[in-house]
């Protein structure tokens, strides 16, 4: 019940702060870019763009939202209600995943039609977006400034996106199989190519595993760094 309320409110919050307009502008930019790219690079570029949608944007927007909330000092009154950190994280992850999913579908449908495996493609976007959103909240909880957040978020996110090196044939390693982005890339590829059940299951499992791990870490990080400051006033005085 509280989760549903918080989810609906987060969507309204994002709308009112213009996050949906940011997404519309970015989608338009991506589509123009895809239109200009030669055909034989289009699939790879589209995958990169649909990957950056839930990951890079999720990472930056989630941190931005938490910083905005902190600036408004909203965590003080929020966490002296029955609303708990786990619900807060779930609501942020879900609301931003919806936004990412909409954007990814728009990009994919306009650029190359309906994904070949809609479920795999959607699952890839949702699980990657939730992973990056929660990672971002765990990082931003430790930062005092936007600059600090931008720097630290890159440090934390970079190891997880190493499988991109494999995808672009720069360097490959079996270790990449242990990272969530490997699952993301396989699921997003299912937008244009068919995918085996084993591949699908592996991708979902690795993303789910990392979602659980990062959720536990972000919850701890938020409790240690944000909840301890409750009552100090935050911003917006």
């Amino acid at each position, binding site marked *: *019940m*509280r989760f549903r*309320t*918080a989810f609906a*409110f987060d969507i*309204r*919050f994002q709308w*009112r*702060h213009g996050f949906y307009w940011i997404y519309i502008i970015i989608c338009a930019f991506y589509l123009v870019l895809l239109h200009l790219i030669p055909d034989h690079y289009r699939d790879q570029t589209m995958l990169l763009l649909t990957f950056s949608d839930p990951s890079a944007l999720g990472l930056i927007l989630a941190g931005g939202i938490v910083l905005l909330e902190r600036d*408004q*000092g*909203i965590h*003080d*009154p*929020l*966490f*002296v*209600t*029955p*609303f*708990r950190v786990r619900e807060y994280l779930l609501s942020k992850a879900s609301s931003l995943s919806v936004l990412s999913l909409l954007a990814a579908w728009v990009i994919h449908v306009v650029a190359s039609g309906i994904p070949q495996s809609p479920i795999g493609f959607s699952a890839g976007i949702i699980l990657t977006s939730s992973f990056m959103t929660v990672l971002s909240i765990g990082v931003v909880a430790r930062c005092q400034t936007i600059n600090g957040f931008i720097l630290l978020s890159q440090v934390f996110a970079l190891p997880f996106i190493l499988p991109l090196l494999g995808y672009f044939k720069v360097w490959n390693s079996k270790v990449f199989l242990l990272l969530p982005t490997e699952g993301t890339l396989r699921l997003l590829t299912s937008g244009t190519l068919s995918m085996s059940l084993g591949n699908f299951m592996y991708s979902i499992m690795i993303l789910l595993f990392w979602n659980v791990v990062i959720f536990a870490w972000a919850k701890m990080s938020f409790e240690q760094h944000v*909840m301890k400051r*409750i*009552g100090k*006033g*935050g*911003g*917006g*005085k």
Partner: protein
Amino acid sequence: MIEVEELHFTYPKIKEQTLSGLSFSIPQGEVFGFLGPSGAGKSTTQKILIGVLKNYLGSVKVMGKEIRNTGSEYFERIGVAFEFPNFYSKFTALENLQLFRSLYTGSTAEPRVLLEQVNLTEAANLKVSQLSKGMKMRLNFCRALLNNPQILFLDEPTSGLDPVNAKRLKDLILEKKANGTTVIITTHNMQAAEELCDRVAFIVDGQIKLIDSPRELKLLNGKKRVRLEYRYQNEVRNEEFSLDDIGENKYFLKLIREHPIETIHSLEASLEQIFIDVTGRQLT
């Protein structure tokens, strides 16, 4: 309602204790005030009582339960208004109250009724960013009342309010008390504490130096005398008299019978002076 015994608290990475052995109890329906200078431990005590800081030593029982063992259900039963009235600034006053209301599962108050009680009906559909500090303070108070709390924690409740709205808020606090709500106030404002609190605790250096009712404190620490200011011909004169047998003091009776009286004041101590005398510190 609240039972605290030998409460000790030390913040991580800090050697000195912030709270050193606080013990007090607050019965249901009492308005209790924590008074003390900045850094004395008032906010830490409040944070422990509202369940935000749990790694304390000693015992803190609220509504019969040790506070470190409580979960989200505890927040269904308390209302908290921090000193800084923070809200979602791009949402209206009413939208903010509706959101916070929806976070409770128990019975809740109607936001529009609360807004009316604090004279904010006209501001219901204004964005919070358009409200003055005083309006936000009143909205802050409304938010703390949304879940009909059994215990209300108020930090500087009259800060930034004009006298009319401060009076309205104080009346609402006393109304809540009359209905059985326990109210815990943290404040620097001695006048508000005197008017509202059944008892006050003076906190300095993490210790309670004294707990008593403002009235008792003022009587015990004041002079049992009355100062009379009267007009004699074109001149204003002052005289002090002992309160003992004042009804039989012929000179006092003669003065009030024969001269126009400007003022009469009993000389009980002010709460602020008692605080300074007891703690050796100013309330800043």
